[in-house]
């Protein structure tokens, strides 16, 4: 929980659509949060509104990191996208729960399950 934050973006293709998966590792705190903010803004600027966050290697998050995610969720949903979170570390999950953020986001065990659910919902709406 003392590591710096690293972000690796993997582009996955599902049903012909490219979806960025942001794989976070290390710690997300008041210092490293700007790095994630830049990454999210970068994807939105590219016109990508469905963002998947793989948190399997994110060992630590403080309220500064949680607050950042809150700030983007409505914008993404208004543009028919979403913020999907997968593979949450137990320490991080506990913070989601204490703050009640677990009711705001959509969580999946795997990226594939996240895609399947999201695109099924999108088809249902169209």
């Amino acid at each position, binding site marked *: 929980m003392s590591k710096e934050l690293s972000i690796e973006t993997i582009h996955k293709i599902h049903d012909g659509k490219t979806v960025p998966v942001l794989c976070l590792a290390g710690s997300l705190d008041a210092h490293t949060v700007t790095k994630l903010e830049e990454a999210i803004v970068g994807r939105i600027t590219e016109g990508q509104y469905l963002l998947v966050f793989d948190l399997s290697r994110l060992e630590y998050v403080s309220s500064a990191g949680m607050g950042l995610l809150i700030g983007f969720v409505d914008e993404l949903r208004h543009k028919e996208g979403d913020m999907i979170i997968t593979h949450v570390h137990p320490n991080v999950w506990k913070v989601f729960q204490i703050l*009640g953020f677990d009711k705001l986001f959509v969580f999946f065990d795997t990226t594939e399950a996240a895609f399947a659910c999201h695109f099924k919902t999108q088809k249902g709406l169209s």
Partner: protein
Amino acid sequence: MFKHHLRIPAKTEYLSLIRSTLKNLLEREKWALRDIHPVILAVDEALTNIMEHAASQNKEEPVHIIFHLTPRYFFVSIRHKGKPFNPKPVSKQEVQARLQKRQRGGYGLYLMHTLMDTISYRTTPQGNELVMKKVWRKR
């Protein structure tokens, strides 16, 4: 009892160093991992508040952190000479209201009060002091 004194600039880049140090100290006192994380998070939130709000005018002014540790007891004193910062309790309703409004900040105090047993604060001519305490409980 083990006592450890750290002095750092009021800059968030030092948060990871404090978390790492505290983790090592608690492990040395045989604290279980599941009990270590809440303590580290509460200290991180307290320092973040001080660095970003109370001590924002002079980042070079040191923040003094004193840990007192035993296998059953954790105590931290954080002293700084910035603006007084009163960590008053935040209710769950306030947190939910902030969440509804999608506010990015204001969750740290709630975490501190939820994760620690007692929190006190005092302002003296020498500066401000935040004290947090956690007692390990057998499960």
